[in-house]
C-alpha cells in the first residue's frame, strides 16, 4: 500500500479545500449520499459509529431505568412505563417476562452495540489513520461495509424489540437450553432468532472493521512512524482488533450451532430434556459446550471493551499532565500481556458449571496473572500524573475517573477470579457491581475522555466545559453510589437477575438500598442525556476551534487542518522523527515537541 496514492472514485477529495470551515465552500462538492451516508471517509464512518452508538446507549440505559424501577420499588406501579412499553407493563407494573427481556437487551446493547461497535468503531476509525499518518484505512470500502453491517445488525436487533413474544430474554449470554427451546421462555421464540441473526451479522461487521484496523496499523504508517513511535491509543486499538479478529469467529460458530439446534433438530447443546410436558428427542449434546464457545469470545470481549479506554486514557493523561506517559514500553508490554492472557482465562466464568476442579485451578492461576499487567498500567498512569502540570478539563477528569474505576473494579476481580471465593459470589450482585464498574462505567469513562478530547478534531468545535464538569461529577459520584452498595448485596449472596426479592428471607432486607440505587441510576441517566445534548448542540453551536493544536499535543492528528477533508493532510503526509510523548521544553517556550519535529543536533531518539 502506498500512502501517497490519492484516493479516487466518487469520494474524490483533494486536500486543498480542507482548511475551510464550511462544507459549502468546498470546490469538489460530493453528493450528500456519498459524503454522509455511504461515505468511505474514515472520519465520517467514525461519526456514524459514534452517533449510532449514542442512540443505542440511550435505549440501553433507558431499559436499565425501567428495570431499576421494578427492582427498587417492586410494590409500586409506574403508569409512565405503560406509555413506553405498552402491555409489557400493564398498569405500570413491569411483567416478569419483559423484565428479563429488558435485562437481556440492556446487556447485549451495551456490551456489543455501544462498547464494542460504538467505542472501537468510533475511535479506531478516527484515530488510527490520523495518528499513524495515513490518508484513510487500508480498505475504505471494507470500512464502509463494516458500518453498514453494524447498521443491519442494529436494525434486526431493533426489530426484535417489537415482536409479539418480545426480544430475547435469556440473558446477554443466551445460554442454551433456555435460549434454544421455544417452550422454555417467551423470549426464546422469534425474538431469539432475530437476536442470533443480528449477532451473526454483528460479527461480520466486527471482523471487517478489525481486519482493516490491523492492516492499517501494520501497513499504512507514514515515513518514520515505526511501531515504537505509535501513540498508545493505536497500540491499544490494534490489540483490540487482534482480540476481535481471533475470538469473534468462535462466537460465530457458537451462534451457528445454536441456530442449528433451534431450527434443524441437531443436538449440539441439548441432552435429556423434558419440557412443555414432553421429553425431547435430543441426546448427547452438552449445554456447557456453548458456554465454552461463548466465553472464548466473551472474555476477550471484556478487553475489547477495556483496551480502547486504556489507550485513550494513556494519551489524555499524558497530554493534559504535560508529561510523557510513564513507561511507554512497559505500557506496550502490559498490553501484549493482557491480550495474550485474555485468550486463556475464559473458563473463569464457568467455575460452577461442574467442570474439573483441576482445570478450574489452572484458570484461577491464569486469571489472577492478569492482575500483574493491570497493576503495572495503573501504577504507570499514577506516575504519569506525578509532578505533572495537570489541566483538569473534562477529558482529563474522565481519564482520571477511568483510572479510579479501573482500580476499584479490578480489585474485585481478584475475588471473582479466585474460584474458591467465586463459588459463593458467582452470579450474585457482586459480579454485577464488578463488571459494571470495570468494563461498563470505566470503559464509558475512557470513551467520554476520548470524546471530550477529540471532539474538536471531529467537528472543529469544542464541547461546553461547564456541562462537561457537571457530567463528570454526577456520573462519577453516581457510578460509585450505584455500584458500591451492590457489592454488599452480592457478599450476602443475593443472586442477580431476580425480578423481585420480597419472598426471600436472606435478601429482602436490601430493599431500601435497592430503592436508593434506583433513584441514583435515574439521576445518572438524565445526566447522560445532558451529555448527549451537549454533544449535539456543540456540533453546531460550540466554541470554534481557532488553532490547529488546542491541547498542545505531540501526535499527528493535530497536524491536520481543522475539519480535514478526505485524505486528511493537504499535500504531503508529515514525516515522523520522534516518539509520541515528548512533553518537554522544545527550546522555544513550548512544553511539547510534536512528532514531526526533527531531532535536534546531538539529541538522541527515545
Amino acid at each position, binding site marked *: 500500500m502506498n500512502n501517497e496514492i490519492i484516493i479516487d472514485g466518487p469520494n474524490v477529495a483533494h486536500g486543498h479545500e480542507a482548511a475551510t470551515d464550511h462544507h459549502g465552500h468546498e470546490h469538489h462538492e460530493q453528493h450528500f449520499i456519498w459524503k454522509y451516508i455511504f461515505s468511505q471517509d474514515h472520519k465520517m464512518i467514525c461519526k456514524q459509529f459514534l452517533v449510532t452508538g449514542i442512540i443505542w446507549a440511550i435505549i440501553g440505559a433507558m431499559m436499565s431505568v425501567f428495570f431499576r424501577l421494578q427492582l427498587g420499588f417492586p410494590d409500586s406501579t409506574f403508569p409512565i412505563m405503560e406509555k413506553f412499553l405498552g402491555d409489557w407493563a400493564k398498569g405500570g407494573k413491569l411483567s416478569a417476562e419483559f423484565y428479563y427481556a429488558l435485562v437481556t437487551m440492556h446487556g447485549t446493547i451495551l456490551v456489543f452495540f455501544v462498547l464494542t461497535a460504538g467505542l472501537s468503531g468510533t475511535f479506531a476509525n478516527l484515530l488510527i489513520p490520523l495518528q499513524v499518518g495515513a490518508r484513510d484505512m487500508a480498505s475504505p470500502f471494507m470500512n464502509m461495509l463494516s458500518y453498514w453491517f453494524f447498521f443491519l445488525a442494529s436494525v434486526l436487533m431493533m426489530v426484535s424489540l417489537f415482536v409479539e413474544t418480545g426480544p430475547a430474554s435469556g440473558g446477554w449470554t443466551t445460554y442454551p437450553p433456555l435460549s434454544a427451546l421455544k417452550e422454555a421462555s417467551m423470549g426464546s421464540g422469534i425474538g431469539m432468532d432475530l437476536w442470533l441473526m443480528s449477532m451473526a451479522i454483528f460479527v461480520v461487521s466486527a471482523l471487517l472493521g478489525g481486519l482493516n484496523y490491523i492492516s492499517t496499523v501494520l501497513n499504512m504508517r507514514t515515513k518514520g512512524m515505526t511501531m515504537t513511535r505509535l501513540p498508545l491509543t493505536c497500540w491499544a486499538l490494534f490489540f483490540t482488533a487482534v482480540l476481535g479478529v481471533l475470538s469473534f469467529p468462535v462466537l460465530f460458530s457458537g451462534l451457528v450451532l445454536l441456530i442449528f439446534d433451534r431450527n434443524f433438530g441437531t443436538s449440539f447443546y441439548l441432552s435429556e430434556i423434558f419440557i412443555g410436558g414432553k421429553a425431547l428427542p435430543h441426546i448427547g449434546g452438552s449445554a456447557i459446550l456453548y458456554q465454552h464457545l461463548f466465553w472464548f469470545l466473551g472474555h476477550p470481549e471484556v478487553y475489547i471493551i477495556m483496551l480502547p479506554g486504556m489507550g485513550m486514557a494513556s494519551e489524555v493523561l499524558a497530554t493534559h499532565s504535560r508529561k510523557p506517559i510513564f513507561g511507554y514500553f*512497559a505500557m506496550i508490554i502490559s498490553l501484549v500481556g493482557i491480550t495474550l492472557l485474555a485468550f486463556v482465562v475464559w473458563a473463569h466464568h464457568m467455575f460452577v458449571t461442574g467442570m474439573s476442579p483441576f482445570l478450574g485451578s489452572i484458570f484461577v492461576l491464569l486469571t489472577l496473572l492478569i492482575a500483574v499487567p493491570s497493576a503495572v498500567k495503573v501504577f504507570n498512569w499514577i506516575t504519569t500524573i506525578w509532578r505533572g502540570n495537570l489541566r483538569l478539563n473534562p477529558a482529563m477528569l474522565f481519564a482520571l475517573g477511568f483510572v479510579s474505576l479501573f482500580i476499584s473494579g479490578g480489585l474485585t476481580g481478584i475475588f471473582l477470579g479466585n474460584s474458591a471465593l467465586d463459588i459463593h459470589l458467582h452470579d450474585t450482585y457482586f459480579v454485577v457491581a464488578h463488571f459494571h464498574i470495570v468494563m461498563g462505567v470505566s470503559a464509558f469513562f475512557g470513551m467520554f475522555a476520548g470524546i471530550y478530547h477529540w471532539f474538536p478534531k471531529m467537528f472543529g468545535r469544542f464541547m461546553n466545559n461547564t456541562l462537561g464538569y457537571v457530567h463528570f461529577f454526577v456520573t462519577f459520584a453516581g457510578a460509585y453510589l450505584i455500584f458500591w452498595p451492590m457489592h454488599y448485596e452480592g457478599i450476602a449472596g443475593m443472586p442477580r437477575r431476580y425480578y423481585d426479592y420480597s419472598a426471600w428471607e436472606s435478601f429482602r432486607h436490601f430493599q431500601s438500598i435497592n430503592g436508593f440505587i434506583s433513584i441514583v441510576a435515574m439521576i445518572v441517566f438524565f445526566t447522560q442525556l445532558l451529555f448527549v445534548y451537549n454533544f449535539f448542540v456543540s456540533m453546531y453551536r460550540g466554541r470554534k476551534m481557532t488553532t490547529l493544536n488546542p491541547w498542545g499535543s505531540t501526535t499527528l492528528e493535530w497536524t491536520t487542518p481543522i475539519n480535514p477533508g478526505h485524505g486528511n493532510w493537504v499535500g504531503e503526509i508529515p514525516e515522523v522523527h520522534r516518539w509520541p510523548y515528548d512533553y518537554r521544553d522544545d527550546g522555544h517556550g513550548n512544553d511539547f515537541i510534536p512528532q514531526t519535529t526533527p531531532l535536534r543536533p546531538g539529541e538522541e531518539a527515545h
Partner: protein
Amino acid sequence: MSVFIIITLIVLVFIIIYQIGKASEYALILRGEEKVRAQTNRAIAILLLVMFVLGMWGIWECNEMFKGQMLPVAACKTGENYDMMFNVTTLVTGIVFFLTQFILFWFCFKFQSNDKRTAFYFPHNNKLEIIWTTIPAIAMAILVAIGLRNWFDVTSVAPAEATVVEIVGKQFNWIIRYPGKDNELGKRDFRKINDANNILGLDWNDPHNNDDVVLQNGELHCVVGKPVKLLINSRDVIHDVGLPHFRLKMDAVPGITTTLWFIPSITTDSMKIITKNPNFVYEIACDQLCGKGHYSMRGTVIVHTQADYDKWMATQQAYAIGNNPAAAPAAPAVQPAADSSHAKVDSAKIVKAN
C-alpha cells in the same frame, strides 16, 4: 400527554443548563481566558479532593450500615475457611484500594496546573517497573495458594459415609429425592418423566426406586454434623443450586450430573437463635437465569439433629406408593395434552404465589 410534558420539561431544563454553560464561556472571554481557566482548575482540584473525602466517608457509612448483613453466618466448616480467605482478600485489596485512590486524588490536587509549575520529564524507570511488577505477582501467588487449597478442599470427593441426596431443578422449583431405607437412589430416565405420577422419571424396573422419597416442596433435609452429598441435575434448562449460608454453588445442567458436598454445622433451630430471627431459614436460590420464574425458584435446607431427622423421615412416604404403576405399564414418553397443561398451571401458580 404526561410523557410529552415530562419530555418538554427535561428539554427545557437542558436548554437552561446549556445556556448557563454557554454564558460561562462568554464570561471566560470577558474576564480573561487564562485567569478564569486557572480559577476553574483550582476549583476542580479542590472538588476532587472533597470528592475523595466524601467518598471515604460514604464507604465508612455504608460499612456501618451493612455490618452484619454481608456474609451470613457460615453454617459449615468450609464456609468458615471461606470467610477467613474472604477477609484476607478484602484486607489486601482494601489497602491497595485506599492507597491508590488516595494517591490518585492527592496527585490531582497537588499537581494541578499553575503558572509556576513545569512538568517533570520522567519517561521511564526500570527499577520502579520491576518493583510494581513483582509485588503484585507475589501477592497474587499468595492469594492463589490460599484459594487453591480451599478450592480443592471444597471440590474434593465426598466421604463415603455421606448421605446422598438428589436435587433436580425444573422450571421453577426444586425436586429432592432421598434414597430411602436401602440407601441407594434408583435409576431414572428423562423419557419416563410424567408430571402426573413420575416427576423424576423413575425407572420402576429398578427395585431401588421403590423406597425413594421424593419431595416436591423444595425442602432439603439433612443432619447436623453429617456430610451430605448432592447429586445435582436438571429436567429442562440450566439452573443453579445456590447455598449462600454454606458458601456453595453448583449448576444444574440437563444431561450432566454435578455434585457438591458439605457438612452442615448448625441446625436451623440454633440458627434462629444465633441470628435472632424466628423466621430464619437456609435458602436455596437458583443462581442461573432459567426463565420468567427464575426469581421465585426457591428451596430450603432444613438442618435437623439426628433425632429430629429420623422422626421426620419416618413420616415420609416412598414416592412409589400410589405412583408405581405395578398396575399400569411404564409411563409413556409423550404425555397427553391434559398433563402438560397441568404442568403449566403449576409453574404459573408458583410464580404468582411469590
